[in-house]
């Protein structure tokens, strides 16, 4: 349940919902497990026509949002994706498009046009494998050499990298970060699909071996991209948590319906107090998740100085209670809840993936403490 949407936002949500329901109902979704791409390209371009990939792009670069608050609109779309466990490279494409628009929309005009129209997919190559698997650890290197950039390293869990035309790679240059836009057909780039627990969403490992790129591949400032990366992370977490809440919401609805319809010992399951109290706890977790995901979206959208804390608070809460809620929904369904034919696992997968990528609950708790210390330190300096 979302409060305070404008009419335009209600329209965006309604159109998106109807399109998702019609084009990828759950039976279609179940079949997608056998498709390497996880979605049909038509599906994505039509979605892009609804504005899905334009929301973080400035109007002068071909983007735009219904409310003027693109990230909040995008969170509404992501929420619908969660409610339907929908396929498609929503997160990666938007993060890449947003980064290009913010850095230099004019220079990346052609790429932005393709991303916004859905003819190209973008993927953000950020996370790295063990032993650099921690949130924010970047070991991949970008070195400037003769007016070119040379990129090396390994990235994992890159959403839809194998379907992408462009990778936005976050790398290290000395002590700072550098971001480069890398067409996936650049020599030295090897993309290997990974196994994943989702039915339709795909992830890949990206190996970068002396990948040579022109100076124009640079997104933002060389060696000084940390603030951009933080903004991307915040936006990605807003999308991720919104989607998780959507999936939680739908799973909760299914469970409440199930308990009402099923009888045991002559009574509806919903009449058993032990189950009622668990559903009450689920409701608590769900409402709190809504509250935190919304608060994070508002904070990042408005550039609130506490946005970094709030996305991590939202993520640390959802990564803990989202999977718990879903697993309890499974338990309340009984055996049917772990069958492939039932819908519940579609939402379970989406929530569980969200809990583990872009930082675990634990990593975000640690991040919160570091941010709180920084805030306290800054206040002391002011005083």
């Amino acid at each position, binding site marked *: *349940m979302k*409060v*305070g949407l404008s009419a335009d936002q209600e329209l965006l949500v309604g159109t998106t919902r109807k399109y998702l329901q019609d084009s990828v109902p759950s039976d279609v979704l179940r079949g997608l497990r056998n498709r390497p791409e996880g979605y049909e390209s038509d599906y994505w371009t039509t979605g892009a026509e609804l504005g899905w990939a334009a929301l973080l792009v400035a109007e002068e670069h071909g983007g735009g949002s219904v409310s003027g608050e693109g990230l909040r609109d995008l969170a509404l779309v992501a929420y619908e994706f969660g409610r339907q466990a929908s396929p498609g490279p929503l997160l990666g494409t938007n993060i890449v498009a947003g980064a290009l628009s913010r850095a230099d929309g004019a220079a990346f005009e052609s790429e932005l046009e393709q991303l916004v129209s859905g003819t190209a997919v973008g993927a953000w190559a950020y996370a790295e494998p063990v032993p650099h698997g921690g949130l924010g650890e970047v070991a991949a290197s970008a070195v400037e050499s003769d007016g070119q950039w040379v990129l090396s390293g390994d990235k994992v869990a890159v959403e839809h990298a194998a379907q992408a035309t462009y990778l936005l790679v976050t790398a290290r240059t000395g002590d700072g970060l550098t971001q480069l836009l890398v067409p996936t057909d650049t020599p030295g780039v090897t993309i290997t699909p990974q196994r994943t627990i989702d039915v339709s969403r795909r992830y890949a490992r990206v190996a970068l071996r002396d990948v040579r790129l022109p100076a124009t591949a640079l997104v933002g400032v060389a060696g000084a991209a940390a603030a951009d990366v933080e903004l991307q992370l915040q936006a990605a977490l807003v999308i991720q948590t919104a989607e998780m809440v959507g999936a939680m919401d739908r799973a909760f609805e299914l469970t*409440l319906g199930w*308990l*009402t319809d099923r009888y045991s010992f002559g009574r*509806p399951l*919903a*009449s058993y*107090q032990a189950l*009622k*109290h668990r*559903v*009450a*706890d689920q*409701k*608590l977790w769900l*409402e*709190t998740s*809504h*509250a*935190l995901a*919304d*608060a994070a979206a508002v904070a990042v959208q408005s550039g609130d100085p506490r946005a970094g*804390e*709030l996305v*991590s*608070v939202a993520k*640390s*809460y959802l990564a803990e209670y989202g999977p718990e809620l879903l697993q309890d929904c499974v338990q309340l369904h009984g055996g049917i809840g772990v069958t492939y034919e039932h819908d519940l696992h579609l939402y379970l997968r989406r929530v569980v993936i969200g809990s583990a990528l872009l930082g675990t609950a*634990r990593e*975000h*708790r*640690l*991040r*919160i*403490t*570091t941010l*709180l*210390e920084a*805030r*306290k330190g800054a206040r002391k300096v002011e005083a």
Partner: protein
Amino acid sequence: MSEIESVEDFRARARAWLAENVPRLGPDHRGRSFVRPDDEELAEVAEERRLQRLLFDGGFAGICFPKEYGGQGLTREHAEAFDQELAGYAFPERLQVPNMTPCATVILEFGTEEQKRTHLPKILRGEELWMQFLSEPGSGSDVAGAKLSAVRDGDDWVLNGSKIWTTGAWWSDWGLCLARTNWDVPKHRGLTVFMVPIHQDGIEISRIEMLDGSNEFCQEYLTDVRVPDTDRIGGIDDGWTVGTRWLLHERSFSSSPYALHPTGSNSYGSAQGDPADNLLALLDSAGRVDDPAAREDVGRAYTLQVATSELDRRLHALILSGKGSDQLAAVGRLMHGVAGAQVATIAFELAGQSAVAGDVDDDVLGDLGMRYLLRQAGSIGGGTTEIARNVISERVLGMPRELALDRNVPYREVRTAPSGGSSGARR
């Protein structure tokens, strides 16, 4: 009706007035400690009455109460602006819950014109301090199972029985009292609400000692207490109409516009400073700034604290917008209980052995053991979390009601707990 002041004008006026008139809390103010000598407690109550009077005289008492009863006749948005401005200032903490809500709000909603004109201005001036005569020994969560009896005698009613878990009855003035006036009808149909002056011959106040040695809660024994019928609130035997709203106000205290909650205060409106600062101070005192497990604990506790306030904000918006029923307040009540206990546990674990065997002068860690022992108090007082879960499942989500064996049965025939008039606090 006259135009009301804009929220921003009001905010500016409040800011200036507070800076001019109200003492600021010190940087190391840590909220009320619950174990203190009685004379200290009485002095604090007196100071809070003075602060309330100050608010009243400044035109800031009862922001959402109508002007004709001494309030400001303003909106929830004004109340929120004032809460934000109030952060960091001393305020009459004890006079908020249950005095302003649910007591004063129940009077406002159900009182006669005369009752409202008599009591509300006094409450808003800090002259009358109200408490709830609601729970009874043996009735537990079953508030409507009240057995304190009121028998009509001419123009009066004669009350006999006992109430329990009344906060600070010994320093308060009036009790809002739920009594049984009819035993021959089902439970909910034989109740009536009365206003009762606390300090009188027929009322014996016994203080209950809690496990930490505090004794702010009281039990009252009423013997032949006469209450004029004009001090009845709502209809005879219709007390449950009042009672359901009363309980809803109680569950909603954390988002009520009728009580002050300075921004940054904890869930009970107590000024605790920024939770982040408290957690970081704890991390430091425990010597665990570099311990990742302890750092994770700080992040977890902060998450729960932010989650609680963001949930309150959302529920409040849902209820206000009409998208959610008033009963959603039970979700907030559950969160305050659950998250409060979790935060107390985290703080206890952060402190480690110092929380159970600490130096006498260790004020940061030394209290945390006792706070941990009391951690369930926030899940019991003000309606248990179990009742909140019932309300959420049944009234918010529409799941089937629990079987109640006392429905449609004259109350005198219902099997109840072995309580009588004796203290439920004694074994």
